[in-house]
């Protein structure tokens, strides 16, 4: 296992972008349809029902659950082998280093809860995933706050993760290109956060 550490880390970096990052963008975009009202949202998410159940479940496992489980669990290992020293080195990149780890650990908790509250309840036959389901969840102001923090953690983790991906695979090498990509990743963070947060607020 340790012998292949390099490849595990590269896989961790790749899976964070493809498919997990792509899925997040898709997921938040689909949620954004909620800003058009309950009907728009239900008809947009209803498209999923056209896919046969066995096929949807296979896709879910291969494209979402397995990659996110690996990324999350291996990420926890990475996060807890770090020794943050932000008091002594208070640079932007060092803060992003710490935030990447904090948001990552929080996201494992958030996503586990989110899955339990929505997908698992559907699988158990306790509830139907719909506009009303989310409306009931975010009726509780604490739950709304929890979801907003979760969404912002996810968007920050992805935005900074894209920057780190570019460095880790040797795409951005020069300090200048890394700086430009820092700005681009932050612009991406703002845009995708607006999409994500306005979507959750549409359920209120």
């Amino acid at each position, binding site marked *: 296992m340790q012998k292949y550490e*390099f490849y595990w*880390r590269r896989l961790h970096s790749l899976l964070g972008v493809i498919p997990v990052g792509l899925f997040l963008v898709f997921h938040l975009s689909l949620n954004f349809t909620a800003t058009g009202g309950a009907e728009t949202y239900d008809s947009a998410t209803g498209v999923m029902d056209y896919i046969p159940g066995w096929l949807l479940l296979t896709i879910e496992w291969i494209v979402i659950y397995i990659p996110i489980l690996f990324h999350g669990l291996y990420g926890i290992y990475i996060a807890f*082998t*770090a020794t943050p020293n932000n008091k*002594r*080195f208070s640079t932007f*990149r060092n803060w992003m*280093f710490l935030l990447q780890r904090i948001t990552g650990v929080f996201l494992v908790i958030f996503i586990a809860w989110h899955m339990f509250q929505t997908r698992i309840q559907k699988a158990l036959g306790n509830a139907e995933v719909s506009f009303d389901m989310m409306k009931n969840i975010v009726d509780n102001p604490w739950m709304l706050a929890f979801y907003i923090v979760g969404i912002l953690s996810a968007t920050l983790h992805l935005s900074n993760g894209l920057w780190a991906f570019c460095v880790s695979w*040797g795409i*951005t090498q020069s300090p200048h290109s890394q700086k430009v990509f820092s700005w681009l990743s932050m612009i991406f963070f703002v845009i995708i956060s607006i999409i994500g947060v306005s979507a959750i607020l549409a359920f209120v």
Partner: protein
Amino acid sequence: MSTQQVESGKTVRFKILRQDNPNGPSRWEEFEVPYRPGMNVISALMYIRQNPVTADGKETTPVTWDMNCLEEVCGACSMVINGRPRQSCSALVDQLEQPIRLEPMKTFPVVRDLQVDRSRMFNALKKVKAWIPIDGSYDLGEGPRMPERKRQWAYELSKCMTCGVCFEACPNVSEKSNFIGPAPLSQVRLFNTHPTGAMNKDERLDAIMGEGGLANCGNSQNCVAACPKGIPLTTSIASLNRATTVHMFRKFFGSDHMVD
């Protein structure tokens, strides 16, 4: 020390983190050292060694630390001064806030007081073959010429003195992680750039693609901010990231010609 300077009566206050043996407990001790113009941290440590008495008059043992060149090229005297890892020879008292806090670079095993064991770094240099093999069983002749501009650029990377400051600054280097650290990685770029060194570049890339290798970098970029020699460590790491990406695919998909 001339009488005039002693009579000025000005003193410098030091707080030093002491530790008697490798696994022993640590404690802070304060010292008061007579001020001399232009003094550095080492000259103050030398004074304490001559007069091992704490600020409140208690006799103690002389403080242990490493030093060698005294001109910031050997890297031996690195320690954490007022929270920042740096060389104590080039740390001028006039430029430091008092009391001046001295701590060992705890990312390495502490031997005693401010003295640390930097073996981890030297072992890493061995692991990545941070040298250029020039010996053969016959006369290998001259190596390929290095372009002058490339030599000038490589000279910057060669300034690394394995002082360990980047290890201390890196949040991913610690006793609980096996990360090889920034300095040895940059040496891989240096020796893989050299025309003769490049003849073994696949071996060095393989070495950093093992356990605790290149991919364990977390991009906090503290190393480049802390390096006393201004070595572009993060550029070296990013450049090696690309080199290993190519190497990885070549190893899997490519033929058996691993060097060029």
